[in-house]
């Protein structure tokens, strides 16, 4: 488990110096952590974007397939491809595409000529809203359930929660989504079943439309977080200092919140880094069921039409999202349990 073994300096007289030293230490730790994380994710970004770019060559698709038809003479096909810059060598194309990506230009869609960045933008806000809400729900309920199961370990509460989680984690998101639509929206008429209302049109209209899709997405995250937290807390409870603390008369609540939780929460936070890609990926299904015009839908439609630049743009954006999210998670993890950063 990720805990630090550093010992508090005892010097109390020179309070000012100690605080400054502590602050410097903290900042240096933060920067090292940040630097290390970046050094890992930069290659990931480049490998992923290269693989994305490779898709066009692998798929053998070209814009002529979508746009031309009656007028598809070889001359016209060549002209169309040249206008998209597709007549240059592979690495020349990759270079200019990558340069564009780094400046925020994701190319033009082959099916309607719009800049891909514009097409993705509106859908992205919808998908991110749903994914973030799903994350909040998943983490919130996951932490609560996991903590409850750990604190009441080996009782029927624990067994009940664990079995429930093991079943829930196997149910695919589309089944949950369908059940929610049928039961909550259509039968109980509590919440709408389709569409998206922006936040500016009111808090409740916005929330009522995003709640069901976010809930459908959140179950996987919820069960992972709960399981990791439960395992982490149970491990932390087994440590010697807990016995020592109990013997010294600390209350159970204080033991839990001040010591066990901070030491046991590491894996639960760490697993978020793995869950976030699943949330973005699950958006394809959830947007289909709940009629949200998000970027998962956009990716699926563009892919089926053979509109390669749009698909590439979506993949790049999702990679950036995941990398950014993992950066935040690693930073958090560094502050919560610095030992994890030392590769233990």
């Amino acid at each position: 488990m990720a805990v630090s073994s550093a010992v508090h300096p005892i010097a109390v007289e020179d309070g000012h110096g100690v605080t400054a030293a502590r602050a410097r230490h903290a900042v240096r730790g933060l920067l090292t952590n940040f630097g290390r994380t970046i050094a890992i994710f930069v290659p990931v970004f480049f490998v992923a974007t290269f693989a994305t770019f490779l898709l066009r060559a692998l798929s053998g698709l070209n814009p002529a397939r979508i746009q031309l038809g009656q007028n598809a003479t070889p001359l016209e096909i060549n002209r169309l491809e040249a206008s998209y810059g597709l007549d240059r060598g592979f690495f020349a194309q990759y270079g200019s595409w990558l340069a564009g990506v780094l400046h925020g230009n994701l190319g033009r869609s082959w099916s309607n000529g719009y800049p891909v960045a514009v097409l993705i933008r509106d859908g992205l806000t919808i998908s991110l809203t749903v994914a973030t809400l799903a994350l909040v729900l998943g983490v919130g309920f996951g932490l609560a359930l996991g903590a409850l199961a750990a604190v009441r370990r080996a009782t029927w509460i624990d067994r009940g929660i664990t079995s429930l989680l093991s079943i829930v984690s196997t149910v695919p998101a589309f089944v949950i989504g369908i059940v929610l639509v049928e039961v909550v929206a259509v039968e109980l008429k509590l919440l709408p079943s389709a569409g998206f209302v922006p936040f500016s049109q009111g808090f409740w209209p916005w929330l009522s439309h995003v709640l069901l899709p976010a809930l459908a997405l959140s179950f996987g995250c919820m069960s992972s977080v709960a399981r990791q937290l439960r395992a982490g807390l149970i491990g932390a409870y087994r440590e010697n200092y807990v016995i020592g603390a109990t013997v010294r008369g600390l209350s159970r609540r204080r033991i839990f919140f001040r010591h066990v939780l901070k030491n046991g929460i590491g894996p639960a936070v760490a697993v978020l880094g793995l869950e976030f890609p699943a949330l973005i990926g699950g958006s394809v299904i959830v947007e289909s069921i709940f009629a949200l015009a998000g970027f998962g839908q956009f990716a699926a439609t563009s892919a089926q039409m053979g509109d390669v630049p749009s698909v590439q743009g979506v993949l790049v954006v999702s990679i950036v999202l995941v990398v950014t999210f993992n950066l935040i998670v690693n930073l958090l993890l560094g502050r919560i349990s610095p030992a994890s950063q030392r590769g233990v």
Partner: protein
Amino acid sequence: MIRRVLAQPTGRLAVGMLSVIALLAIFGSVLAPCSPLTNSAHQLAPISASHWLGTDYLGRDTLSRLLAGSRASIVGAVEVGIIALFVGAIPGAASVYLGRVFEWVTLRLVDTLISLPFLLVAVAVTALLGNGITQALLVVGVLLAPSFYRVSRAAALSVARSQYVEAAEISGASEAWIVRRHVWSKILPPISVSLAQTIGAGFVVVSSLSFLGIGVQPPAPTWGGMLSSDLSYLSYQPWAPVAPAVLIIATVWACNLLADSIRDVSGEAGRAFASARPKRRRQLARPEVGA
């Protein structure tokens, strides 16, 4: 090991369920009361003696279609598991022996695969590569390979440094013998755990893809595809999605149960492998605590 798994109640349950499902996959079309492809005039019929689960929108017997679809879905998931196994385990073990550069490259590739949003990439790449079922299985298999990579790499790492292997080498044992005698029994439990989990996860992904209409070939039935088309006729048959949904959930749950029971049974050694990390600085935080 199999005996120990069967000794556990969860293990028995899991193996039992999976055996039933495997039987369905193999003998499904034979057991089916009607041909899954025969249209009849009785469209969307309710449950009756001649049609135990009613008929679908073209008058085909739902039960027969479920049985016939079991093969496609299950074989697909097993294929995904095998592809993931080979794509992941071989580089994983090799990374310990083939030098720093190979190791660094494969580690970065694995990091990339983990970072990709799973279903989105599966949908996008499958559709771009022709929307067929083979492409779908290949893509999903590659995306699920990282867990095999980690497991086999951890196993290879610990074996490469263990003393009993050194001792065996010193006393003249051949590499093949070492592998068979020591490495195999150590690797088998965590690989089995990963395989069971991957088949379960692959099953979910393949069902999701067929739900979205990717990789399906009408009129061949698939569980995910049936669930999707059941949605269009909910007002006529509100209970229809229950059957394919229950089958999908049961299969995935059985796979996960099997994985859990193998992990429990293999004890400390298995757990250590499953949770061992490469002895380098941590890339992505990847805890794997046996729960």
